[in-house]
């Protein structure tokens, strides 16, 4: 296997966008090509991370369409769908293409167009990933979050305010991200008094419905200096799955696929937790940020809520988490989110994160599909 480097990155503004999925993918892909300083005909493999463009807007065949729109023909193209973790599954596919020697220059573009649908319709598209025994009861991803949050808070005697602190932190980080959907600070009181959505979780415990796209360019690390003076190496990447039926997991507060993918990615990278300087987690719901911190081993089970309350995960804390604003503030265009997580860490490692910059040489991302059903963890480090 060859070492793989990321040498270019881009993302569109996330939020309510006029363009449709092909417009968003082409915008991010074109920007990444420009950022990398390549021509579109240099691309050998083109991967497109997208969960549901067919269901959301009746557009299928997006990889071929994007290759044409970017001028990347005759690059090999493939769509990658792994629900909310489609973005990182695309990273895994792109990494494999370069690591295996199949491609010397791979472009990954992830995107989704969602906001033309009502929240109920978008929720139903996402909930269609559930088992029939769940779907017929009207089970949604937010309701999984409510069920799990109650169990977590009860089991660990954690205060409800801890989840509010996650929302406040990530909204604060999003203020400094020009591409974030929400660039507005909120108070703890606002978070805790917002409308109830899935008891005990309220509106500010949930990410919004979002349009957007993000892209990355990957090459063999041995070629990276041909494209950039500084770059990021993907030193560890691994994916794992958990049960399709969520209630069958022995411990509802433990994300088994996060733990498994994290162990493998850390093992591959040669790094351990103490080496990691910045983390992007899949905070589709505030409770998930805490559960990922615990499953990845950054916090002991039942203790991540304390990190949220005492500022350890703030941008100026011991372990900055979601400096981008996370899905909570930046937004969650399904197929783009995992890619955008890596775009943020890439920027942090290259000292290009602007007002969000932290001191970082090693970063980690964790992208979650379903309610922990499919997970990809990626470890990266700065190189020059």
């Amino acid at each position, binding site marked *: 296997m060859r070492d793989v480097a990321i040498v270019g990155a881009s993302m569109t503004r996330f939020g309510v966008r006029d363009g449709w999925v092909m417009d968003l993918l082409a915008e991010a892909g074109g920007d990444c090509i420009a950022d990398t300083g390549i021509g579109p005909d240099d691309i050998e493999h083109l991967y497109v991370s997208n969960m549901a463009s067919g*269901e959301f807007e009746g557009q299928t065949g997006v990889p071929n369409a994007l290759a044409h729109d970017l001028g990347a023909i005759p690059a090999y193209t493939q769509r990658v769908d792994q629900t909310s973790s489609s973005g990182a599954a695309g990273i895994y596919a792109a990494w494999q293409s370069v690591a295996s020697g199949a491609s010397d220059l791979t472009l990954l573009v992830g995107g989704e167009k969602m906001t033309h649908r009502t*929240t*109920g*319709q978008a*929720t*139903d*598209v996402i*909930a*269609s990933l559930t*088992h*029939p*025994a*769940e*779907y*017929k*009861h*009207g*089970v*949604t991803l*937010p*309701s999984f979050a*409510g*069920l*799990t949050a*109650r*169990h977590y808070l*009860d089991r660990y005697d954690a205060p409800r305010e801890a989840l509010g602190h996650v929302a406040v932190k990530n909204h604060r980080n999003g203020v400094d991200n020009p591409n974030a959907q929400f660039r507005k600070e909120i108070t703890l009181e606002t978070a805790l008094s917002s*409308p*109830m*959505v*899935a*008891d*005990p*979780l309220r509106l500010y415990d949930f990410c919004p419905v979002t349009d957007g796209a993000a892209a990355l360019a990957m090459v063999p690390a041995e070629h990276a200096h041909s494209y950039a003076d500084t770059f990021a190496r993907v030193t560890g990447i691994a994916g794992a799955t958990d049960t399709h*039926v*969520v*209630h*069958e997991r022995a411990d*509802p507060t433990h994300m088994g696929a996060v733990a498994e993918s994290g162990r493998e990615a850390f093992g591959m990278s040669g790094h351990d937790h103490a080496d990691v300087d910045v983390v992007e987690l899949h905070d589709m719901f505030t409770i998930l940020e805490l559960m990922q911190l615990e499953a990845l081993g950054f916090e002991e089970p039942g203790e991540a809520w304390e990190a949220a309350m005492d500022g350890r995960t703030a941008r100026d804390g011991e372990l900055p988490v979601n400096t981008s604003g996370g899905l909570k503030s930046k937004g969650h265009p399904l197929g783009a989110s995992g890619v955008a997580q890596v775009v943020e860490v890439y920027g942090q490692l290259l000292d290009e994160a602007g007002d969000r910059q932290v001191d970082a040489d090693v970063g980690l991302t964790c992208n979650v599909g379903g309610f922990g059903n499919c997970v990809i963890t990626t470890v990266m480090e700065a190189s020059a």
Partner: protein
Amino acid sequence: MSDDGPGDRDRPPMTAARYADGSVTYPPHPVGPDGSEPVAEVDLSAQEAEVVTWTTSHATPPGVREPNTLAIVEFDLDGSPVRALGQCTTDDVAVGDTVEPVYVPELRDPDAGIRERESQRWDGYRFRPVE
């Protein structure tokens, strides 16, 4: 979507699967947690269970009642725990409550959501607190 289902004669079982290693899952799967095939069916419909956790969803998809109170409950089958997730008959539930399954012919409107009506069953069991 009434809570008043048909009588016992017409009520289908709430079928769980028991596997060769003794484990039980609801719903049944082609293979159990350890990879073994199911060896028996277990009807949970006449059993009582305990509420492990619950939520009330106030933002439901098309065709789903609003609000929609859901619970994960745990049955005790002679020492073997088996969990189920389903709607509740009331918003007044609490962790630790004892509940019983109540048959409902249609849990949500099969024609309102994204999934095809013919692709799955839409009847099932809600959980009702035992007085």
